[in-house]
């Protein structure tokens, strides 16, 4: 097993075998559970169309996944630095590129766990309704680049910033701004500024795709533009993380 795989395995298993990782996972499940319970405790929400509920749950999974990815990404380098393990890692016979690949694959594995954890929630709110299968497929296809992109952005900031706190705060601000369409809804974004932001915001791209395929049953081909947007986001953020991780700040 090469060095990248070893680091990836360690990072991924940290989510399930480490108290800190389990606490993050518990927070993630708590967000999804709170949303699901809100649906049955509020009479008006409980009357929402199944497809609408599945769309909202897919958006919530993406936002909560991105949040955990940002926390993990912020911890990737700055956390190692604060725990005093970054220098030993950098002096080990492993290139900075391999280290980054290990952390990046580990983050992807952690998102895989979160994605699997989201499936029972999607089933619980959407079984018996329309397009549950599409929701699961498109959450994987569009949610993965969006979530990992935010994780890699946080990783890039973590490699350069002095502390977990500063990289986490910066990443959270970007995430909150990007995820604002989740709160605003399509009606309020129907202006020139809203449409322009939608065109470049990967989070909006994923949300609009969920809306189109889950609620309106649009075909895959009509989502190609948005797929390019989220893949570009992933590619650019990985590139930025790679550049930052070449010379991580040691102190």
């Amino acid at each position, binding site marked *: 097993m090469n060095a990248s795989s070893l680091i990836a395995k360690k990072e991924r298993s940290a989510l399930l075998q480490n108290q800190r990782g389990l606490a993050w996972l518990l927070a993630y499940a708590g967000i999804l*559970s709170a949303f699901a319970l809100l649906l049955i405790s509020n009479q008006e929400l409980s009357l929402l169309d199944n497809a609408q509920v599945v769309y909202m749950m897919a958006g919530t999974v993406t936002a909560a996944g991105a949040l955990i990815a940002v926390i993990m990404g912020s911890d990737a380098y700055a956390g190692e630095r604060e725990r005093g393990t970054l220098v030993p890692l950098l002096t080990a016979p492993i290139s900075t590129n391999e280290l980054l690949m290990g952390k990046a694959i580990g983050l992807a594995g952690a998102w895989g766990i979160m994605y699997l954890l989201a499936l029972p929630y999607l089933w619980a709110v959407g079984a018996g309704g329309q397009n549950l299968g599409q929701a699961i497929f498109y959450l994987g296809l569009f949610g993965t680049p969006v979530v990992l992109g935010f994780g890699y952005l946080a990783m890039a900031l973590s490699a350069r910033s002095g502390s977990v706190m500063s990289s986490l705060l910066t990443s959270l601000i970007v995430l909150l701004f990007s995820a604002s369409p989740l709160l605003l809804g399509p009606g309020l974004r129907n202006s020139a500024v809203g449409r322009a932001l939608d065109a470049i915001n990967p989070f909006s791209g994923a949300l609009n795709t969920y809306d189109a395929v889950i609620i309106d049953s649009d075909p895959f081909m009509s989502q190609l533009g948005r797929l390019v947007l989220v893949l570009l986001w992933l590619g650019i953020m990985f590139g930025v993380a790679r550049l930052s991780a070449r010379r991580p700040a040691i102190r």
Partner: protein
Amino acid sequence: MKQLKYLLAGCLLLSATLVSAASLQLQLQPDPANPAHPTMGDWMHFDSVITNSGQQPIEGLVAWISLVEVTPGKEQPMDLEDWSAHKAVTGTTLQPGATLNTQWPMRLIQNGDYRVVISTTDRNNKTVFTSPTLQFHVTQKPVVESTRILPVALGIPLLIGGLFGVQKFRHQHKVS
């Protein structure tokens, strides 16, 4: 003579009330586009026509919609909070012969038998005029089911919490 005065005053008051009572006419119809068999979550619309059939303009007209549940054993007035955001028309002036057409949208939140009615009054009259009532039945709809959600929403955090507890126990055991 005094009795005659009281009788005359009484007749005048009665005639004023009758004139006033006859000055507004209300009609209420279900919208033709309403679902034939309304189900929970559906929208229904009710169309009202308020006509000033009197000789005087009516100022400060207020019209409002009321909903009453008449399901056997559950008879009660309903709070329209979740059902409708359009609960009243206020401050309108109606000239003699003029009409006010209003559409009242309503989202059906609960199953059961219901009656809807429109009432109006105005600034100067103390009388409240009501339309004929319309009755409809709302059938139950399977909504987001708590039987599916509860085990997932409570079970998964409990499972992770259990894993967390086991990890903590192991860690403490290792340290000691």
